[in-house]
């Protein structure tokens, strides 16, 4: 990510309205979520099980990074305190990050990455469809752009869930283990934080109950084809959207932010 003063985001012309200013924490949460997931996926670069899937994960990481940049640029503008997209990404600590817990979970094996991705893709795709027709023009523009990419992601991850679930004894064992490990983080995605609740009232944050229904239907359909069971009665962890993270985020940020923390203001 590099600051490029030649390319301001689209909505720079008008000062943000009061309602828009309240959007800042939500846009930042979207930015953090896309950035952290992009970083996790990028960790696979050069380590993928086969070249084509290594490339796929790098491509998807790049899409999320691009989406994150659009959100960070917009968040910086909404905040209006002179912080840049880079300041927001590189100079905030773990407790200031607002991503849900799911996306910060370590890659694990390929099955772990696929399950994490598939669950997030199901949420992401339906969220973007809602944001695309939402009341905020800039969020709608970012979503309109990103949903096209998300359609490729969800197809890729769903096909891999099916291949692994309905695959060999080992792939099935690994994907079942991944579902068991990660399911506890799936509830947070559609459980609104206090910030989101306030914005839902104003119509800026979509109705998560409706997204949950669409997600569940999609997951059920893919799991059925994969001959996998959807877990029931799992206690759901949350806290990421309020800055209470698992221990994994700190390590991730230590790597992600290393250069800017060590050499403040470094550019290349």
């Amino acid at each position, binding site marked *: 990510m590099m600051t*490029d003063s030649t*390319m301001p985001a689209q909505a720079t012309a008008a000062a943000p309205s009061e309602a828009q200013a309240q959007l800042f924490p939500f846009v930042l949460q979207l930015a953090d979520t896309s950035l952290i997931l992009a970083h996790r996926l990028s960790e696979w670069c050069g380590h993928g099980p086969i070249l084509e899937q290594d490339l796929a994960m790098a491509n998807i990481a790049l*899409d999320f990074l691009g989406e994150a940049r659009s959100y960070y640029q917009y968040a910086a503008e909404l905040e209006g305190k002179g912080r840049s997209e880079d300041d927001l990404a590189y100079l905030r600590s773990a407790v200031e990050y607002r991503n849900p817990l799911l996306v910060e979970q370590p890659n694990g094996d390929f099955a772990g990455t696929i399950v994490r991705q598939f669950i997030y893709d199901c949420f992401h*795709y339906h969220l973007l469809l809602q944001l695309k027709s939402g009341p905020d023009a800039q969020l709608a523009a970012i979503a309109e*752009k990103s949903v096209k990419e998300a359609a490729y992601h969800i197809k890729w991850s*769903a096909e891999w869930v099916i291949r692994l679930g309905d695959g060999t004894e080992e792939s099935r064992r690994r994907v079942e283990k991944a579902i068991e490990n990660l399911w506890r983080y799936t509830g947070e995605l559609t459980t609104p934080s206090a910030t989101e609740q306030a914005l839902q009232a104003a119509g800026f944050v979509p109705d998560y109950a409706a997204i949950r229904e669409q997600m569940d239907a999609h997951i059920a359909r893919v799991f059925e084809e994969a001959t996998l069971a959807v877990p029931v009665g799992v206690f759901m962890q949350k806290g990421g959207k309020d800055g209470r993270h698992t221990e994994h985020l700190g390590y991730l940020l230590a790597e992600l932010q290393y250069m800017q923390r060590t050499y403040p203001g470094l550019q290349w």
Partner: protein
Amino acid sequence: MVEQLAPPNEEHIWQLLEGVSDPEVPVLSILDLGIVRAVRVEGEDVHVTITPTYSGCPAMNVIATEIRLLLLAEGITKLHIHNQLSPAWTTDWMSQAGRRKLEEYGIAPPVDGTATGHMLNLFGKDTAVRCPLCKSDNTHMVSQFGSTACKAHYQCDDCLEPFDYFKCHA
């Protein structure tokens, strides 16, 4: 003496922009790709609006710099480059000349109407893409994700060569 340059006019700027190529697909100009959405001249100020092909396209910064350098050489110093996300870029905006140049370069051009719009169409039949090398239609997709964000990875089952497919993005 500094030569007095004529004031910029929009038509001339469009012609100049034909000279800026996509750094990742150098046979295509940015006009072939359809990423220049508008050119507006207001006195000495020139506004060029571009749109990214993919959110994370790393070529966008390079393209913006190249536009700036090119127009600077023409004496245009008050240049404003705007990055517009909506309406989102689609391969429908790629010119016919661009599609021809792509195939000659060895990249299969987008087949219209084949965008991934149906997320439930899992393991669906691959788009029939003509091999840009031997022109056979007997090809298969290796991966939806290729050497850059805008391409998928295919292989020809006749000449056996792997090739890039500029995937449809509608």
